[in-house]
């Protein structure tokens, strides 16, 4: 069954076989878990975070037991994953939303964050002073000068969102001792 689920996700099964596996794959907790773990593996291969972490401890345990099974198939999975995930999600109510992010992924920007450094341009300010800014930032970007400190967006993002990560919190708490309650 495990092999069948793997094959299903890789798009290697005929239509009637795929239907049978979709039906069968959620018949037991064990197979549901397999199905789910394989999706998580697919996600992590593509650099996405977990879609839905109902059973994180089990996932981690299962992941550590199966580190390399799907890795060589990356190319196949990327080609067929969305279609299969969509079809399966429609069929299997318990994993009804699994395919969603995968489907939407095509619309998401996946390139890494762009960092630009621009020379201070007096003229540029008039560009955006009007209510209709130019869509394109100042020309002559991408030239990152080496003597400039690296942009640290995370500190500001954390303050803006008011959602400190535990690592951030430890940094802050080290500066001033917290009071015992």
């Amino acid at each position, binding site marked *: 069954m495990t092999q069948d689920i793997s094959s299903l996700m890789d798009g290697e099964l005929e239509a009637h076989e795929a239907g049978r596996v979709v039906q069968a794959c959620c018949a037991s907790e064990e197979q549901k878990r397999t199905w789910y773990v394989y999706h998580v593996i697919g996600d992590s291969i593509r650099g996405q975070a977990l*879609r839905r*972490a109902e059973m994180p401890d089990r996932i981690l345990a299962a992941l550590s037991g199966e580190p390399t099974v799907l890795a060589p198939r990356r190319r196949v999975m990327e080609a067929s994953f969305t279609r299969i995930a969509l079809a399966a999600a429609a069929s299997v109510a318990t994993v009804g939303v699994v395919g969603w992010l995968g489907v939407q992924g095509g619309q998401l920007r996946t390139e890494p964050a762009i960092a630009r450094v621009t020379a201070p341009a007096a003229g540029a300010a008039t560009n955006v002073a009007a209510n209709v800014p130019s869509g394109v930032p100042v020309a002559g970007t991408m030239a990152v000068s080496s003597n400039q400190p690296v942009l640290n967006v995370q500190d500001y993002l954390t303050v803006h969102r008011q959602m400190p990560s535990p690592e951030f919190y*430890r940094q802050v708490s080290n500066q001033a001792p917290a009071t015992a309650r």
Partner: protein
Amino acid sequence: MSAPDSPAWCRWLPALALGAACTAAAAPPGNDPLEWLQRAAQAARSASYSGTYAHSNGDRTSVIRITHVTVGKDEQERIEPLDGPPHEIVRHNDDMFCYFPDAKTVRLDRRVSARFFPAIFSAPASTVAANYVPSLGKTENVIGYDCQWIQLQPKDALRYPQSVCSEMNTGLVIRSKTFNAQRQVIEQYTFTDLRIGQAVPKNEVKSTFEARVKRWFTDTRPRDESKGVATGWAVNDPPAGFQKVTELHRTMPGRPAPVSQLVFSDGVASISVFVEANSAPPRTAEASSEDGTTTFFVHPMGDMLVSVLGEVPLATAQQVARSVARRP
């Protein structure tokens, strides 16, 4: 500009309360997009719901569990990010208690610039409608709920278009997308499982970590800082529709002194302006980064450094940063 001790959103509160009184979670409104918008904003506060949502913003994806109940007029909410080391935020109205069991620390704060899905509107629908044109899109079944898409088309290029999918019976936003000028999705939230209504147990909004640690350390500084202070800084040319919410000092790691923060909002998007010493080695050139809706722009001003972060296009962040000046 309002004084820091009477932030602009105080003026919105009566309208919010009125919204609560007028909204009933019964039949969906007709074809008026503004009514749909009002209902969606209200449902995030007044409905009880429990579920898990995924949030993708540019390169970042996170999965968050949320439970929200309303007892009388009080909102209670528990938010647990499921990635990384365990932690959670328990929220009572605007009071936030962030539990970090590994550090045995609970961090107290008040909601200032934070926005937690599905409560994505920080102002009444009328304020949102002053900056965006709402319209009704298609209806769709999302994770078992029928919902109505509400589109928000910005009236200018200073903000991003957005669409929210509002559940028919309650109005709760189940899914939301933010687009760039090319209509590509750059940020989205979606519930992956959701219960709405009476089935949500009230004890699910309590901290799950509190009982696990015998002796918590309490950091009250973030809450003290959130009370606000006159920073001495002003944005002389704020983008149209953005009102100042508050200004305060924030302690940030690696800084010898607190950083000034001014918060602006147009009812959907928010902008934080940070002003601090341009410490060694000083930054001499402007710099920016964009990831999803998160835009970051740094503008050196001699011995001071202005950094703007918000869910706005780069040109908007530039306009804000370049008009920062000392308040006369």
